[in-house]
């Protein structure tokens, strides 16, 4: 499980980073990454390395023993509070200090030990990014260690392997593998920025051609619209929202299949029962549990009540409504027993958001392969199913991994509302929105076009980090197709 969790983490952090216009590979900025595997481990460690690491922490770390912190003694551990940019406490943490040149990378390195749970770690990671750190590229800590003479020549080979192998894998997760809705929205955002920029650049480079121009008001409203779209997308960003609010979950299945035992087992596993759940009507949430670092907000449906007959009219209606709204459906079936019509219908209606738990595998004859029974149903084909036994406590880890895979892979959530899914994308989108805000400010101040274009280009560079297009060529193409230019 650890290796898979590690892979998930890596996929999140290493998602293909594309060269951008005027891309500068910086060797001296401050980088950050999660050093532990994602998931509900006891603690998480975030590693910061670079010249700005200390000043970054000055801004968001409040040490308990300030005097000791200020002594800057090497190889010391400091207890304190980590805050976000609004001075809101994120977690109690231990910060380890390893100064250059004796640290692993040969730069100032700080390690933040925070409480387990992906939620906390992600929030701290994002806080560091907002304070100016950059998400580390694959193998980047090791690369710096080597370049700073902290590793010998033999180890260099390993560093290169680390850099290149991880990049090859990351390339598999290219932009076009994102859910269709999301890529469309990001491409749309990018096109809007290009459009505004095309008006400006065409006007600048072809001043005597009949290029339509935008006046300040039109420009302002175009940028404003684009910014709104970016902000909307950001507000709904997958990881952030799900980590913040949890995943709306419903457990369905016919009577006596083991729904209640599953619920009880989940509750028994639970490390933090959450009572305050924003954005949901509290009285319809029966319970909230943590699984794999993800909060599952369980909708109270008829399906929950052991012994309740699904045929009963009211119960059916509530269950189906809940299934419709849910972001995750746990369909509990009994391994080896034929499915009901309702079981099949759930799968047909919501194949994307359903996970099948083939329960009671402990009751199967031992000489038979589990898959023979579970996959017997036609509807089950190509679906994610997990051999499960609440009784033997089997399948929980697989369920955890599956949920994490979906959340961090951008594969949960209502399909009508595209959501961003990983830290790098969210960080890029935040940068894009900030640049657009600056552009808006520049328009309002009456800044000239060439200044305004700097802000817009910056926003475009951030979007292109997500989409991986050649900005320069895209812009020229837009100009030449939009305007009739040339003598």
């Amino acid at each position, binding site marked *: 499980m650890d290796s898979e969790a590690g892979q998930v983490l890596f996929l999140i952090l290493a998602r293909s*980073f*594309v*060269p951008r*216009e*005027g*891309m*500068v*590979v*910086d*060797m*001296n900025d401050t980088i950050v990454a999660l050093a532990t595997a994602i998931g509900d481990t006891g603690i998480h460690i975030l590693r910061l390395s670079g010249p700005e690491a200390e000043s970054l922490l000055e801004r968001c770390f409040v040490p308990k023993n300030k005097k000791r912190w200020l002594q800057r003694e090497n190889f010391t551990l400091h207890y304190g509070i980590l805050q976000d940019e609004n001075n809101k406490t994120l977690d109690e943490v231990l910060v380890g200090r390893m100064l250059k040149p004796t640290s692993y990378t040969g730069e100032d390195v700080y390690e933040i030990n925070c409480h387990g749970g992906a939620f906390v770690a992600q929030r701290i990671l994002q806080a560091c990014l907002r304070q100016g750190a950059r998400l580390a*590229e*694959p*193998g*980047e800590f090791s*690369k710096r260690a*080597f*370049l700073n003479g902290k590793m010998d*020549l033999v180890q*260099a*080979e390993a*560093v*290169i*392997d680390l*850099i*290149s192998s*991880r*990049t*090859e894998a990351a390339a598999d997760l290219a932009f076009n593998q994102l859910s269709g809705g999301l890529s469309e929205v990001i491409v749309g955002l990018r096109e809007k920025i290009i459009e505004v920029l095309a008006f400006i*650049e065409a*006007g*600048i*480079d*072809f*001043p*005597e*051609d*009949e290029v339509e121009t935008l006046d300040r008001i039109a420009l302002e409203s175009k940028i404003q619209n684009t910014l709104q779209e970016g902000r909307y997308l950001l507000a709904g960003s997958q990881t952030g929202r799900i980590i913040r609010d949890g995943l709306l979950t419903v457990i369905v299945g016919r009577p006596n299949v083991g729904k209640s035992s599953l619920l009880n087992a989940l509750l028994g596993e639970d490390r933090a029962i959450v009572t305050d759940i924003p954005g949901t009507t509290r009285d319809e949430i029966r319970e909230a549990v943590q699984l794999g670092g993800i909060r599952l907000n369980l909708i109270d449906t008829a399906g929950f009540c052991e012994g309740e007959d699904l045929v009963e009219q009211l119960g059916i209606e509530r269950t189906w409504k809940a299934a419709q709204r849910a972001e995750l459906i746990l369909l509990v079936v009994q391994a080896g027993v034929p499915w009901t019509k309702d079981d099949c219908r759930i799968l047909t209606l919501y194949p994307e958001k359903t996970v099948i738990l083939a329960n009671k595998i402990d009751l199967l004859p031992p000489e038979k392969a589990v898959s023979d029974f579970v996959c017997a149903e036609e509807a089950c084909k190509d679906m994610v199913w997990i051999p499960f036994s609440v009784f033997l406590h089997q399948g929980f880890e697989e369920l955890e991994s599956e949920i994490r895979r979906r959340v961090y892979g951008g594969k949960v959530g209502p399909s009508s509302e595209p959501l961003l899914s990983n830290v790098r994308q969210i960080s890029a989108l935040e940068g894009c929105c900030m640049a657009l805000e600056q552009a808006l400010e520049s328009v309002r*101040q*009456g*800044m*000239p*076009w*060439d*200044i305004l*274009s*700097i802000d817009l*280009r910056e926003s475009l560079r951030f979007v292109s980090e997500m989409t991986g297009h*050649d900005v*320069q060529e895209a*812009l*020229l193409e837009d100009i*030449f197709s939009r305007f*009739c*230019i*040339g*003598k």
Partner: protein
Amino acid sequence: MEYLAGKYDVIVVGAGHAGCEAALAAARLGCETLLLTLNIDTIAHMPCNPSLGGPAKGHLVREIDALGGQMGIIADWTSLQARVLNTGKGPAVQALRIQTDKQAYQNRMREVLFAQPKLTLLQGLAEKLLLHKGNRGVKGIRTRSGARFEAENVVLTSGTYLQGKVIIGDVMYAGGPNGQSPVLTLSDSLRELGLELGRFKTGTPPRIQRQSVDYAKFRLQPGDEKCGRFSFLPTESQFWHRDYTRQVPCWLGYTTSQTHAIIRENLHRAPLYSGKIEGIGPRYCPSIEDKIVKFAQRESHQIFLEPEGWQSDELYVAGLSTSMPEDVQTQILQSVPGLEKANILRPGYAIEYDYVKPHQLSLGLEVRQLPGLYTAGQLNGTSGYEEAAAQGLLAGVNAARRAMGQEPVHFLRSESYLGVLIDDLVTKGIKEPYRLLTSRAEYRLVLRQNNADLRLTEKGRRIGLVDEERWRIFHKKKEDFQGIRTLWKSTFFSPLQENLHAVMSEAQSTPPRGGVSAEELIRRPEINVGHLQKLLPELNEFDQDALEEAEIETKYAGYIDKLWIDIERLTKLESHFLPTDLDYENIRGLSTEGRQRLKEVSPLNLGQASRITGVNPADISVLLVFLEQRRRGGNQ
């Protein structure tokens, strides 16, 4: 019969805009230089627009000038009209455009070439490039008439002549621009040497007789009252001597639906659509038939009539570039209001030509696989006189430096448009005739036309092309610039100062409540140097250009500082040099595409490598580790 006709340090083949700058630079740096041209009468010819400059191109002319090149000075001297474009669009993109007298430009350039010590001008057609046996270095050239000229350094600037093919409607013949003869054998010689060539197309509009125009139907396009000039040296137009009222105007008119109908009816005779043209043409310079097809909804397109000379009877019809048959060209022209009786003097045409794919060059414009051979100008797939001249200057300088046993010079993207141009050509490669645009420069705000001297004169001085006069003028401006900034920092105005309120209300700016420095005031968007001059009369003693530069640098300091952070990062990467003998095939860990592209471009440093399409940041990381490995390995 081949015979040895002479030995030189540098031979320049072709005397267009690239060739002239190359030859002058090499000779001025002290090299015995031969400039070989097809025809001494057509030196520095402008076969297309009779104008120089505009956005990015104008910046380039000023850079050529700051480095000690010739184009700006001659353009000023032969200027018919000067206009600054983009005045309302910001400090970085304002650009001077000058209409020149074509004939005078050529004559003046020829005089300068003749007067240049160490420079020999000769009419002849270069047919073959000669190489040393074995080491493949360049040995010289042979002309069609059998003359062998020897030189270790050859700059080829043969423009659009290589395998030139002129196309007018259904007629097609081998030819160079404007009725010249083509060069048919040199392409093969280059191919034999292993150079990869491509084929591009460009075109030009018809020229008409100026007496045949009804000007009442056109709108006057005069020059500026406050006339700019390209050169940082005090050069004046020989024609109108700073009396702006004597400038020659251009004229603006429009095509009509009738024009468009004529073109549509005759599209089947347009070589662009009948498949006769194979070369790729520039998107930014479409022919009129292209515009009608691609922008079918447009009811008219604008046309500028530009004078070709002070006394010339010819007008250039900008906007009507075409390769339609001659009879159709006449109909098209005569459908434009005001041109009903227009006489065509020279029909428009399209021309196809071979170009050298520029990824084979170094950042110093030397062909990497043929040491001593340099290519510049339209031969490298660019378009435009300015782009050509800039490349010529660089190639001439580097050919001369090689002759003198010196390292080549390079220009950074962060330092000049010249750097952007060369890096784009070599690093990114081209798919259409390349034109420089300001939007190609990521550090546009620091690459202004008015600070070209502040950016480049010192470099030009080190190269050896900046003379005493230019050096003195540069120093004065630089000192003024620094003096102004110091003065602004140290001058404070009290809110009680007499005319402060008057000036502030004139500028529609909120009056400061407390004391305020001149620097703080000029940072306000609504305050300009003019306002400050009223508060601080000492400013009038400074150079006006220096004042403007100081204003821009202060007002936009936030943006400029941010750019400099980027530039410093880039500079760091560019200081990691990649040995030319690096075998990318044997570097473990590079991505497949990255390896391929690195092999093709053979970048000079990591900065250049990072800009190659297909090379990703992980590849750069791998190279960094590899270089460190190699360095330590070498130390052991």
